[in-house]
């Protein structure tokens, strides 16, 4: 004869919750405390390198959303393509990273930042100089291990949660 239902499950559950009460909470207080995200994250923006770009438009062809628009003209003097417009509608971008993988000249990177919400739909369309790398727009190490090496290692939990006191 086995005694299975006599309230032992209730008591077990109660001990679990009281253990949670007594240990440290596992949340981080976001705006004040930030965790390092993955070094190979595919953030909400695209970083473009004007010097390396040859205007081959491979990125525009691979983009499943057709979000990349590239206009080139022929520079007869130097005998090469010149990029006139490089425009990305990040509102359509699904952060698949195919453009970065496809670029034969390593001129494209995914972004490392994540707080990139905009107030207007039009602000999501970024072109030319807006797409260049800058301290505010660091490149992610996705598909580029040499970039990933320099980024800080990912942290999963803040060691000790300190409450913000006013």
């Amino acid at each position, binding site marked *: 004869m086995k005694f299975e239902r006599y*309230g032992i499950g209730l008591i077990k559950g109660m001990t679990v*919750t009281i253990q949670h009460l007594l240990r440290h*909470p596992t949340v981080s207080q976001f705006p004040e405390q930030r965790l390092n995200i993955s070094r190979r994250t595919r953030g909400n923006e695209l970083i473009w390198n004007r010097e390396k770009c040859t205007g081959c438009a491979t990125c525009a062809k691979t983009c499943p959303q057709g979000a990349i628009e590239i206009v080139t003209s022929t520079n007869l003097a130097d005998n090469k393509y010149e990029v006139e417009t490089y425009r990305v509608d990040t509102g359509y971008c699904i952060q698949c990273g195919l453009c970065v993988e496809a670029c034969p000249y390593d001129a494209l990177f995914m972004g490392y930042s994540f707080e990139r919400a905009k107030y207007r739909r039009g602000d999501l369309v970024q072109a030319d100089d807006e797409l260049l790398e800058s301290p505010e727009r660091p490149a992610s190490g996705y598909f580029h291990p040499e970039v990933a090496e320099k980024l800080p290692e990912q942290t999963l939990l803040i060691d000790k949660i300190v409450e913000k006191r*006013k």
Partner: protein
Amino acid sequence: MATVDFIVQNQLPMQVVPPDWPGGYWWHWLFFTVVLITFTLIMVMGVIYVERRGLGRMQSRLGPNRVGPFGLLQPVADAIKVLLKENIVPDKADKIVHWLAPVIAFAPVLMIFAVVPFQNGALLADLNIGILYVVAISSVATVGVFMAGWGSSNKYSLLGAMRNVAAVVSYEMPLVLAIIGVVLVAGSLSMNQIVLSQDIPFILFQPLGFLIFFAAGCAEINRSPFDLMEADQELVAGFHTEYSGMKFAMFYLVEYAEAIAISAIITTLFLGGWRGPLLPPWLWVIVKIFVVFFLMVWTRSTFPRVRIDQLMALAWKFLFPLALINLFVTAIQVLVWPDALPWVLIIINIAIMVILVVSWSKFFKLGWGRLEV
């Protein structure tokens, strides 16, 4: 000496004013009314804080911690927010009923505190039928809830209110039977006398009664795991779906004031009320209320909500028979061994509780296990 006092007090119709009270009846009434309303409102804020922080920590998060030191002012901020909100009354609502429901729900909860003793004789009215009064009055809040459900002209409100009525009608039985056990041991219905007779807290004499009262009390006041009249997933918000602004604030207040009231009654009946060493008596009451309320938060964070049929089954198949048996056992103990050593009775009663709960759990299955389709 104690027995003489006891008999004298029992023969009085009701002792409204303590003999050493300096003023007249009206001063007593005014003082305690103001103190009790203030006490209830402040305790509600404290209890909301304990609930939200405790629940947060039990779920591995922090809970509100932005407003004021440690988030202590969060209930104040919430109150201000909810009071400034627009008061929306549905087009097809029964306006008067809709307007009256929060008041009718709130008044009886405040009235319960009239008979909770904070010190020897320090209570608004030392009724000689105090605990009966509590049982009678606490059920009136259900009328308010049903009026809210009916007056809103909303199917979710009505369903929630009907579930509430069903739950309260069912759980009133084990609740009252558990109270009668305490009354038998104490030999009085007056809350003050019950506390006075607790040289050893009645939770030790009536462990089964305490369990039954706690479960039934949680069901009476719609606390989780019996909160299915407000089941968010099924009924939006239950009976107060159509309430906003000040009226919603009233229902929110009622919810927590009821929790405090049940905690206060448990404190008085089972935990020795204001009696305790070192601290002043009124502080002991508050500390014990918080301890009982913490127990409610603890069970709320642990147990999943029961279904409506499980709720009814638990009341009628588990709590009701156990409460009856508890009543008989207590009556026999009081009649046959009135002079038995307390520690012997305590051991016997705890053994009876364990045997009854374990054996009943064999017969009683909540949910009948898992059905494979």
